[in-house]
């Protein structure tokens, strides 16, 4: 199978993301990369747990003062839904439905951008209302590094998906770009899973105290 | 030719190892233990060495046989052997057994050395010393006796002495090799351990043990030696009393020393105390306490204890301990001023 050959619904393989050697390699390579990223985030979580609430003096706010459930809940719902929309996008990709895939990818990007917007608003709130900044304490450094790093991953993912959408908008699906969409969606699921842990360990555990 | 060389090499190593394990100075060598902790550690060293030498001998034996018997003689292809289940089991289980033999005393000793319960007991008679490491000097506070000294630790023999270890700037490590292993002084927390100084062996070592900093802390890490004077309980109590008797700065004995005291009181006293009472919080103790400076065996922990070297040190501390915290803290002194100051400092004694 040549990667650029024009396909039809009938000739399109069941698993387009791993039908060539290159795509099999990309598929496995990316899963392994995610393994490494898992260890990376695990390390950031461990650091956060060690430095949670470690502030230089009592004038500084602790986790239980900072975090609020409503905002965090909305952000979580946005990101979780965006993961769902990316699942639909992949379903359509496997069914050779290019336009539908693009539609659901677009929704994914919108939801992800909304999540990011909320997070920017949230950080702004902490900085101005509570003077909880990256440099104000070890707790601050750890919080913004962990959550900010995740946010940076979200931003990168949005750029990635958008670039793929724009670059391939006129091409339709083929065995060269299908693995690219798939790998980007894997990445998107990964950062969603990381968010579930952040939500639990940072926000929920933080609010409980 | 190579065969002979190998035999020579092996026997050379063996003899060397035997000789070298007897060497080392008794005041600084871990191979000449002078206390309970160093004894336990030396025992572990001997046990592990004994087991490991056994392993080495077995390996060497097989090795030498291979070298002699199986070198290529002809072009025959040898029998391709897949392996041996029996051998695999042997060389898996025997090492496991050997490690168990080593692991049990290791774990026991580790817990023993960490037993500092005595420190937390309310009416404990145990001696507790707070060690605070600095760039590049050591501070020793005796909270029970309410005295502070620096650079030279004074301890009683034949009893457990407990230590609270912390650093006031960067990580250092407190080590008296002949008496026991080290424990790091961290900036974050207080570490606790105990040491015991054997009377007989302290006497054999000249009653002066060498202490070392054992964690890279900056340019003068190599020059952060401290000393430990180990003496009988009676003599120790006498020393403590002498120190406690110094309730205010001792008056200089000669005119020259009095001049020195003037100079000292104008600038040095800002950081260096000459009374042992520990009313200052530890964060305010910026420089070694000099109450009994005249009794010490080194200047700045490393130079010979005489007037010449003392003047050299004060005149230009940076050449002796690059990166030290005293450099640049005072104006240059003339040779006459240095002479007077040194006279004063050398006279700061609590013992005759």
């Amino acid at each position, binding site marked *: 199978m040549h990667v650029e050959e024009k396909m039809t619904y009938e000739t399109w393989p069941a698993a387009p993301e791993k039908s060539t050697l290159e795509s099999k390699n990309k598929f496995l390579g990316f899963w392994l990369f995610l393994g490494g990223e898992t260890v990376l985030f695990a390390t950031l979580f461990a650091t956060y747990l060690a430095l949670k609430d470690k502030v230089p003096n009592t004038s500084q706010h602790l986790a239980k003062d900072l975090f609020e459930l409503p905002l965090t809940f909305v952000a979580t719902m946005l990101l979780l839904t965006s993961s769902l929309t990316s699942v639909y996008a992949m379903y359509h990709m496997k069914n050779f439905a290019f336009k539908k895939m693009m539609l659901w990818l677009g929704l994914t990007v919108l939801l992800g951008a909304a999540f990011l917007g909320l997070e920017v608003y949230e950080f702004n709130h902490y900085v101005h209302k509570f003077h909880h900044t990256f*440099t104000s304490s*070890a707790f601050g450094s750890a919080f913004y590094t962990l959550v900010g790093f995740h946010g940076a991953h979200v931003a990168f993912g949005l750029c990635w998906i958008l670039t793929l959408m724009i670059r391939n908008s006129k091409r339709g699906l083929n065995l060269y770009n299908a693995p690219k969409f798939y790998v980007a969606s894997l990445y998107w699921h990964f950062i969603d899973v990381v968010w579930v842990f952040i939500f639990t360990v940072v926000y929920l555990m933080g609010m409980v105290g | 030719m190579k065969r002979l060389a190998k035999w020579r090499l092996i026997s050379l190593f063996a003899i060397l190892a035997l000789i070298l394990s007897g060497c080392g100075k008794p005041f600084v060598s871990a191979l000449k233990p002078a206390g309970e902790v160093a004894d336990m550690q030396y025992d572990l060293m001997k046990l592990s060495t004994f087991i490991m030498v056994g392993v080495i001998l077995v390996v060497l034996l097989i090795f030498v046989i291979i070298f002699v018997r*199986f070198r290529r003689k002809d072009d025959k292809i040898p029998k391709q052997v897949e392996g041996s289940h029996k051998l695999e089991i042997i*060389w898996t289980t025997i090492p496991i057994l050997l490690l168990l033999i080593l692991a049990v005393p290791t774990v026991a000793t580790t817990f023993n050395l960490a037993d500092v319960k005595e420190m937390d007991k309310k009416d404990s008679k145990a001696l507790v010393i707070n060690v605070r490491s600095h760039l590049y000097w050591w501070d020793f506070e005796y909270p029970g006796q309410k005295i502070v000294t620096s650079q030279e630790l004074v301890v009683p023999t034949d009893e457990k002495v407990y230590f609270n270890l912390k650093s006031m*700037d960067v990580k250092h490590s407190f080590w008296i090799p002949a008496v026991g*292993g080290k424990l790091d002084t961290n900036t974050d927390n207080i570490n606790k351990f105990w040491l015991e100084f054997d009377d007989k062996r302290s006497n054999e070592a000249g009653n002066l043990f060498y202490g070392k900093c054992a*964690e890279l802390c900056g340019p003068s890490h*190599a020059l952060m030696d401290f000393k430990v004077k180990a003496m009988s309980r009676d003599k120790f109590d006498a020393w403590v009393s002498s120190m406690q008797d110094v309730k205010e700065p001792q008056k200089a004995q000669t005119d020259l020393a009095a001049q020195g005291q003037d100079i000292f009181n104008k600038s040095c006293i800002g950081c260096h105390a000459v009374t042992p009472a520990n009313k200052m919080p530890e964060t305010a103790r910026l420089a070694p306490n000099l109450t009994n400076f005249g009794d010490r065996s080194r200047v700045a922990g490393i130079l010979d204890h005489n007037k010449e070297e003392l003047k050299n040190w004060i005149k230009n501390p940076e050449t002796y301990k690059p990166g030290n915290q005293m450099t640049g803290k005072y104006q240059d002194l003339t040779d006459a001023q240095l002479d007077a100051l040194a006279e004063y400092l050398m006279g700061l004694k609590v013992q005759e």
Partner: protein
Amino acid sequence: MSTIAQKKGFGATLWDFLTTVDHKKIAILYLIAGGIFFLMGGLEAVFIRIQLAVPNNDFVSAGAFNEIITMHGTTMIFLAAMPLLFAFMNAVMPLQIGARDVAFPFLNSLGFWLFFFGGVFLNLSWFTGAPDAGWTSYASLSLHSKGHGIDFYVLGLQISGLGTLIGGINFLVTIINMRAPGMTYMRMPLFTWSTFVASAMILFAFPPLTVGLTLMMFDRLFGANFFDVTMGGNTVIWEHLFWIFGHPEVYILILPAFGIFSEIFSLFSRKRLFGYSSMVFATVLIGFLGFMVWAHHMFTTGLGPVANAIFAVATMAIGVPTGIKIFNWLFTMWGGSVKFTTPMYYAFGFIPSFVMGGVTGVMVATAAADYQYHDTYFVVAHFHYVIVGGVVLAILAATHLWWPKMFGTMLNETLGKITFWFFFIGFHLTFFIQHFLGLWGMPRRVFTFLPGQGFDAANMISSVGAAFMSIGVLVLLYNVIMTSVKNVKVGNDPWEDGRTLEWSIPSPPPFYNFKQLPLVRGLDAYWLEKMDGKKGMTPAEPLGDIHMPNSSFIPFMISLGLFIAAFGAMYHVDKVAWALPVMIFGLLVTFGSMFVRSVKDDHGFHIHKEELQEDKGAKA
């Protein structure tokens, strides 16, 4: 792209190497760069030993000495040992599994250039002040260190480390997905197995280092407080992060070394590896256990007796699979027909040296005794015994073993043996006595020692050994130059007893490696065919078009961008006007190049069947 050999000018050759994605050429790049850094690290070692030859020496100042020891350790581990091992893994592993290249040739090149630029960046620190907090760069000292030395360390290693991580993933996917037909996992050569396990370790060990370096960078350059105790920070976190990386790192170094020796013992004894399955099992077990023991570097930090006891026992456990390996190597030779070539000299020298290093390893594992050994010359002796006696001897051995496969010539055997003896004797002279120096009370990382404490004679002996090692290395350099000048070509199996697939193809191989992928019938695939009287491997596929990747300058650009950005990041803390623009420019170069790579299609090219039929295996 024709397969016919072309005469190349210097410029064309340079461009070829700057843009190559061929694993064999990348291997040569790693060998050269790693070799240069090894020489630099060696020079640093010589300076250390000159300074410590006599008490109270002033050959270098205290501050300079701390920079030298830091750079010696950092350079040797990150910029010499790892890249040199990567050179051999790149050169040989794809050939051993019957593949035409690695899974991601572009990323392979990127991995190299990231390592290279990271290493150059770190060494530029010599001009303004090198890092001086040891290769372990503990937090309190690092934050205290003036100047930009530590920043060079943090940023240089970050860039280099990314390269290593990419390389690790690459090797893993290659081994999992691209083995030739018939090459099951249990038919892979041990060197490939050790590459596999080491690569898995890289994948899991480098992220904690990445995090640690990032946190240190944030503290030093961007005002964070991870390690600042006065702001709630914690310096022991750095120790944990560093050693969670650092301990697996040394197993990442030693496992490929073990793999190299497995090949050598087997090849030069004319006998298959004894206990192959046990060897595979032991390799995997060492890889796994390697992640469970990091706190044995922190026995004196004050973690408490429970932690110390657990880590002590776990550490001792690693001795078991390692011992299994030693015995299996010995029994590979037992009953064999052993030829003492230069690689075999190194293998033979490795056994006693590494066993000594291993047993002192068990000694330092006994936590309570380690309170005496830690941070003294005893530990310095231990790790040099395992790293020099294990990794360096393996690298020198592999250089001889696989030189013909990489360059088509053979290094001189006599000169090789001379190098071995000088290096081996010098190594023992330098490091054996250091065990005793540590026990006699000499701490490590000291720029000098005082007279009258019993350290004088031993230090002098130790320094003399360094001279011997230097001579050995110089003889090796001479060997390399003479061999290159004489340029006497050899065939595909110059050692005559090759067992594995790399020996079944020309030296050096054509750029596509195998005209037709080979059919593997068992372990030691090539040996099997030889014993059946065949000249070469049976092909597993008909002759057909071969799909090959295109060269690219983009990996160089991506790495260059990070190199530039690092300068900006580092100097922005000095509030100079150009720092932020430079950092942004560098990042734009990097991300811009990544963007170009993403949007520009690259399908590679095909070598047509007809060209292969004419081609007798010439290089492109």
